[in-house]
Structure formats: C-alpha cells, structure tokens
C-alpha cells in the first residue's frame, strides 16, 4: 500500500517502511543499539532524500531510547550527572553537525560524505567488535598488552583539567572527556541520523572506565535528548522532519522491540555481538561498493528551490 509522505512529497510503500522499523526495533531489542545505521541508508536507497531520512530518523531514536532507558532507570542503571555532562557536549556537536550538513548539501557532497562516514564507522566498529567477541568466545581474558595500553591511556586522561566527581559511576575524571564523547555522539546524530550507541558504549567503557552496568542506560539517556534536539533543529531550520514517515518507523520499531526482547533470551553475549558485527560489516560493504564501483550514470540531477 502506497502512503504519501507530506514533507518528503513522495509516496512510499507503507509496509516496507513498517518492516524496516520492525527490523530496527528487533535489533534494539536484541542488541540494545538504536539501529539508525540501517534506517538512514535504506531510506536513501528507497529514494527518500538524505535530508528527510536524517531529519526524521531522530524521532525513531527518541522512541527507541525512551523505551530502553525506562527499563534501565527502574534498576537504577543511569548515571544522570554523567549523562548531563555528555549532553552538554552533544548539544554543541549537534549544532555543528547541522551546520556541516547544510554546507555539504550546498556543495553537493552530502551523499558521498554520509556514505564515507558510514563505511568508516561501520567498518572499524564491525571489525573491532568481531575480533573482540571472537576473542571472548575462544578465550576469556584480553591480552596483557591491551590492558596495559588502556590503563596507560586512563592515566593520561587523569591529568586533564576540569575534574569532576561522578559518584554513581565512582569516577573522578575531567568533564571534558564525557563532554567530548557526547560531542561526537551529537555530531553523528545530526549528520548521519544515528544515535551512535555502538560507538558511545565502548568509548564509555574503555575511555571513561565506567561500570559496564551503567553504560547502556546512561548512553540511552543522553541519546534521547540529543536525538530530540537534532530532530527539533531539522524540523525548524530545514523543514525535513516527516511525521508520517516517523510514525511508520516508530510503529514498526515498537512491534520489533517486543519481538526482539523475547528473542534476546535465546541469543546472548558474544554470539550476539558476532551477529551484530556481521550486520555492521554487511551494511558497510554495501555502501562501500557504491563509493568505489563506477556508478551506472555519472550524472545526478537535483532540483532546488
């Protein structure tokens, strides 16, 4: 069934968008990631303008993060103070991201930059996750050398200024660090339409040295606000938020998350991460092909005004 998107000014098959939302919801249920890295490329592939895809994706992220954070909140697994400091950096990252997005759109490079960022991020994260989880499957402990490197880095960041106490996480670190991680998160939300959970979570574990139990909840808590802020900016500054598209994605997402949470009982830990890494690499490979293989038509046409 075709449904007309009033802001994108085009018709799309409703069931396909619902299915996409469901798959993304399924991922968030099983792996605890937002799944924006699937939505944006797929919407663009369907002919939805990149601006609309990225502008609308924030709403889906808000829905997924709210439902995720509530569960963590109940168990007390959210470090609000650290989350708010991250949010400070993320707001700045979001604003700069939106400006960069507009500039790239004007220069006609937005599609390519989005693709390159995706290939780079998904590729590196996918490989790291794959190596780490296979490692975890084969033998339990990380090598001594890696542990040394991480602790040396943590010693280095102890010297950073603006130190702050985060009692919930039992951390005494420079506020610049969580704010910096938040900045990258905000930038990714506004330019790529992804929450960046798959990037933030390892950064919070390894760079901040946060207790693993608090990481997911705190990162989701931060993503709610930065995604909402990005969606707001896209709606006001660019008029690129399509509420009909958002509604379809969110509906699918809610259904998918239900199934995902039930499936998560059967797929756990390292095997789940191998599966997620495989998915990241698949999307990376698909987008990478487009960058490096000669396009069928070298010319593209964009209507303005």
């Amino acid at each position: 069934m075709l449904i007309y998107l009033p802001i994108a000014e085009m018709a799309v098959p409703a069931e396909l968008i619902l299915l996409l939302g469901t798959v993304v919801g399924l991922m968030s249920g099983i792996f605890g990631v937002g799944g924006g890295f699937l939505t944006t490329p797929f919407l663009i592939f369907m002919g939805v303008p990149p601006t609309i895809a990225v502008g609308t994706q924030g709403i889906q992220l808000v829905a997924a993060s709210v439902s995720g954070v509530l569960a963590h909140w109940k168990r007390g697994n959210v470090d609000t103070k650290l989350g708010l400091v991250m949010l400070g950096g993320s707001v700045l990252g979001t604003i700069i991201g939106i400006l960069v997005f507009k500039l790239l759109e004007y220069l006609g490079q937005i599609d390519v930059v989005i693709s390159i960022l995706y290939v780079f991020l998904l590729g590196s994260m996918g490989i790291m996750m794959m190596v780490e989880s296979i490692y975890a499957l084969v033998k339990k402990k990380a090598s001594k050398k890696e542990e040394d490197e991480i602790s040396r880095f943590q010693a280095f960041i102890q010297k950073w200024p603006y130190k702050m106490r985060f009692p919930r996480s039992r951390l005494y670190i420079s506020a610049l660090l969580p704010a910096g991680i938040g900045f990258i998160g905000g930038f990714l939300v506004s330019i790529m339409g992804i929450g960046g959970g798959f990037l933030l979570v390892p950064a919070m574990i390894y760079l901040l040295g946060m207790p693993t139990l608090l990481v997911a909840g705190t990162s989701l808590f931060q993503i709610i606000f930065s995604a909402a802020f990005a969606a707001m900016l896209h709606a006001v500054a660019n008029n690129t938020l399509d509420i009909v598209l958002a509604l379809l994605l969110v509906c699918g997402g809610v259904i998918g998350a239900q199934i995902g949470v039930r499936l998560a009982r059967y797929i756990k830990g390292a095997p789940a991460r191998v599966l997620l890494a495989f998915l990241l690499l698949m999307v990376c490979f698909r987008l990478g092909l487009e960058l490096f293989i000669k396009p069928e038509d070298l010319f593209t046409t964009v209507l303005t005004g």
Partner: protein
Amino acid sequence: MKQFFLTALFALFLLPLSSLHAAEQPLAIDLAEDHVDITTGFSGAKLILFGVKEEPGDLVVVLRGPSAPTVVRRKEQIAGVWLNRRSVVFEDVPRYYDYAVAKSEKNLAPLSLLRKLDIGLNALSFTPEDETEKEEYISKFQEALIRNRQTSGHFPLQPKKISFINDNFFRTTLALPANVPIGEYKLETYLFRKGVLLDRKTTTLKVAQIGASAKIYDFAHEHAFLYGILAIFMAVLAGWGANAVMQKD
C-alpha cells in the same frame, strides 16, 4: 413554451455564430478534471484531455510542471572514490514534463520552431546559469538531466498517443506518477499544418496536497517548532507505551 422559444432563438442565432467562431479558432479543448488532489493514499492520477479541431492539421499536447533551478553534477574518481566534481546549474527546468502526439513529432514542424515552443524531448533546451561554458560541455549535462529525470519518472521515455474518436474529436490520457511534484501545471495543445502553428490552447492544472496531508504540510512549515515538539511527544509516548507493555509480561 418560453423555454422552447429560447432554445429556438439559440439555434437560430447563436449556433451559426458559434460555428463561425470555431472557424476562427480551430481548436477547443477541455480537461476532465482541472485539479489533482494528493491525499495520504495518493498513488498517481490520470489526466484526460478532450478536444475538437475544426481544421485539418497535426496535434501535440504538452504538459509542463512548475519550473525550478536544477543542478546537474558529474562524478569523477578521486583516490578511488567516486565524488561529485563538476556541476552545471540550469535555470527554469520544469519539474515535470510529458507530451502526446498524433503522429511522430519529427514531421510536425521545423526543429527551430519546436525548440522555441519546447515541444518534444529532442527539442527541449534549458538555459545554463553560466553561459560562458562551451556548448558541447553544456549539452552533455543537459542530456544527463533529461536522462536522470526520465529515470525518476518525471520526463517521458517516449511521447504518449493522441487518439481520435472521429476526424475532429480527439482525446489523450497522461498518467501522473505517485511522486508527481506539486504546483501549477500548464497543459498546452498545439495545432500545426505543414509546419506552421495554426492555433494553441492553454489550460492550467493544479496539483496540490489536500486533507490531512495538506494540513500536516502547512503545519510543519508555519509552526515548525510546535510540529517538532509534537513529533517528539509522539515518540516519547510510543517509547513509554512499548516499555509499559513489555513490563506486563
């Protein structure tokens, strides 16, 4: 009785007058519907044009959407990656173009006249913003523009047919796709004889969103802030609802 007299009067005086009128204006057309309404369930529309020609000649019907400046970009390989490099901006390119002919447009009129009137894919020409560029270079980008717009379904691959119900009475059907751009359209009918333009008639067509779809569009543009808040509120509600349902089991 009075009505009978009126009709008779009409037949006596007005009819000959109107046929006289018709000889001066050899072409008359009518569009079955002068508006296309885009609703949430919109999946395309059909435009049906009827017309009468009082004199022999060749017909062409051209549909033009609202125009907009259009950028055509060409990719080049840089360090292994295909990037957009050169671009040409054309002013006033119709967002939608389609046409119908009774016979091949090649023999209709001299190409110069067809070019002037923008009739047919071969005669379409757009003005580049920067006119100092070489003609050969520009024409490559223009060809690409037409090809790209054909792929997206906004320019026709080939002309549609005009069919005749009798010698004078004709009709043609133009199909509009689901992604038809909104705005004011112009539908023009031309009558040529031996390469000379005898007559042309223009009607307009309004393609617009109506109902819920239009309300959302207007609201999003006029109250962008409120619209954003509403969307976020919807997302929070959905997320909270999903969580509440999950907690139950």
